[in-house]
């Protein structure tokens, strides 16, 4: 049972350190080239930005070594890469004097995000402790969503009421609500998935749930509609609803839920489209972006983004050689277009692949972790990141109507950075649990068929045999019964 002594061969996380060095080199290289292409000199604050980023990255690395030694080694470097490339982009726009781009503020929020993530890794020793907060998380999530609607606290900016102001400080609470809802859904679904999956009639080959089991999904649907109507925020509404439907599917393995979810979303979207002028406008901008009437007005931003990406072409114009000043909000909502201009399709695809790697890691650890809550939480967080990416990039590249969501880790904006770093802390915590060696076999893995006691002893099939075996079996089952049932479930599905 040497496997029960995990301390012996805890990974040294060399791969993570090496990847971090490359990621930081890319961030520093970007900033260096930005400065040399704009002013032909090292940009102001180059060393501050570089050293702070490097110090933060390696602090996180050391925290992981101490607190989550088995955690995934790719997630942290990938996120650091995205964050430091966005640092270079925002520094570049700050140097070009674009109104709103603020590199030092971005650095401050990045630092805060990483520190909060490290604290989260220290505080949350086991992700299963979050399960106790299931219904607290629901209430927190709903309160966060509703906060911007409170008069005096919320404020409408650019047609969407998604910010709250406390003094000089602005926050986008929906970003944090995303995490609260993921925790709530995971806790709720792990307790109720059997009823949701098995009860109900079959209709056209689909297992339809019972009406009374539909309650929570109706509540979430109502919340996301309230966001859509009250805050005029298409993206967040889509995100919450997509998160719930995605996690329902993860929990129950029933395609019926996806069909119901898509039908409900479709119905909601059609109704919203026919009632609200701002939704109609979004659809018109999407379908008819190059209409001369719209191009100078409402679709100006979208079309400028498309022009920028086309100017970038295959290999990009190079750091500092684009024209982000023509794209409104090139540092936040449209940072993807701005990146496409300077790094080209080659760079954009690399960035998308890095996101894909993060999402894949999340889903991989959802498969690997043993408890149902962890599976759903990791799966849900990974899914919501993928969905957010699709909504943002799809909107900018005119695949779907443009909505106001931020690109995780890249867009300038404190709430988004902070919230997504917390998501990463949770993912790392779950990945540590998933990869920690355990005496129990994991799904699909071949277990050691030779018992430890087999070392040449004469066989004792007698009175002593079963007793000895019993203690051995008892020692082997260091894990909880919950784990054992989990395995059987994992196997027979």
């Amino acid at each position, binding site marked *: 049972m040497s*496997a*029960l002594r995990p301390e012996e061969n805890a990974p040294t996380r060399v791969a993570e350190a*090496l*990847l971090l060095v*490359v*990621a930081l*080199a*890319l961030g520093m*290289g*970007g900033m260096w*080239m930005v400065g*040399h*292409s704009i002013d*032909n000199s090292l940009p102001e604050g180059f060393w501050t930005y570089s050293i702070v980023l490097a110090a933060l990255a390696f602090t996180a690395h050391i925290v992981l070594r101490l607190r989550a030694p088995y955690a995934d080694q*790719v997630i942290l*470097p*990938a996120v650091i890469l995205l964050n430091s490339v966005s640092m270079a982009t925002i520094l570049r726009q700050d140097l070009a004097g674009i109104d709103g781009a603020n590199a030092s503020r971005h650095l401050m929020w990045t630092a805060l995000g990483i520190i909060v993530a490290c604290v989260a890794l220290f505080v949350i020793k086991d992700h299963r402790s979050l399960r106790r907060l299931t219904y607290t998380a629901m209430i927190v999530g709903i309160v966060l969503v509703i906060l911007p609607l409170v008069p005096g606290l919320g404020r409408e900016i650019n047609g969407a009421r998604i910010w709250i102001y406390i003094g000089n400080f602005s926050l986008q609470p929906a970003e944090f609500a995303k995490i609260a809802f993921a925790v709530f859904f995971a806790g709720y679904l792990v307790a109720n998935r059997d009823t949701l999956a098995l009860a109900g009639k079959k209709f056209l080959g689909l297992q339809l749930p019972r009406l009374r089991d539909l309650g929570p999904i109706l509540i979430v649907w109502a919340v996301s509609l309230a966001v859509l109507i009250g805050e005029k925020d298409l993206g967040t509404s889509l995100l919450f609803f997509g998160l719930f439907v995605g996690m329902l599917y993860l929990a129950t393995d029933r395609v019926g839920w996806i069909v119901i979810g898509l039908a409900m979303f479709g119905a909601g979207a059609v109704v919203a489209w026919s009632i609200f002028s701002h939704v109609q406008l979004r659809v018109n901008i999407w379908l008819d972006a190059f209409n001369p009437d719209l191009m100078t007005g409402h679709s100006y931003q979208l079309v400028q983004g498309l022009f920028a990406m086309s100017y970038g072409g295959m*290999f*990009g114009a190079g*750091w500092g050689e684009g024209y982000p000043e023509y794209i409104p909000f090139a540092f936040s909502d449209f940072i993807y277009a701005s990146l496409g201009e300077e*790094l080209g399709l*080659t*760079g954009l695809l*690399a*960035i998308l692949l*890095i996101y894909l*790697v993060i999402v*894949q*890691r999340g889903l991989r650890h959802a498969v*690997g972790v043993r408890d149902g809550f962890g599976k759903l939480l990791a799966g849900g967080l990974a899914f919501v990141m993928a969905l957010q990416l699709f909504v943002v990039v799809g909107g900018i590249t005119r695949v779907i109507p443009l909505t106001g969501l931020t690109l995780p880790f890249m867009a300038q904006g404190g709430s988004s950075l902070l919230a997504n770093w917390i998501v990463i802390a949770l993912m790392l915590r779950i990945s540590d649990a*998933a990869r920690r*060696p355990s005496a*129990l*076999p*994991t799904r699909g*893995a*071949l*277990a*050691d*068929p*030779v*018992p*430890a*006691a*087999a070392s040449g002893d*004469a*066989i*004792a*099939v007698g009175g002593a*045999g*079963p007793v000895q075996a019993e203690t*051995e*079996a008892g*020692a*082997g089952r260091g894990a909880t*019964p919950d784990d*054992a*049932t989990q395995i*059987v479930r994992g196997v*027979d599905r």
Partner: protein
Amino acid sequence: MSELTFTLLRLGYLVLLWVFVLSAVAVLRRDLAGPRTASGRRRRPELAGPAPTPAPGGGAPRAPQRGGPSRLVVVAGPLTGTTIPLTSSGVLIGRAPSCTLVLDDDYSSSRHARIFPQGGQWFVEDLGSTNGTYIGEERVQGILPLAPGVGVQIGQSVVELQG
């Protein structure tokens, strides 16, 4: 900075970006084989190698087997096809949720039977079940050795060890 230097740096940057992506993917490739299990990063070499010669054990029912059965398979009953990887801690079968193989079967007791290794050999033990555990027609009393491929009847299900 000259045009040429800038172009080279620009392309070099993209190359480095892809180097990062590809090395991240290379780290991930180690995972494709599946997560680590109790036996460590890789299966121990001696497991993959040919089975060593059986130790001479006079009078023993069967010599200890290396590379013996690796999984328990349900071959009949509602859970047919279910496979459980075997570990040195054995497999507990019954209706209780704490069992390794949970049977939803009225003919099974909550802790019905146990299949476990001892001295390189696998055994089945009836844990005082109401309806009994059978190998063929024979009811298992106490502990019996269990060879791979021999069906064990537990309630409506039949399980067997497989290589």
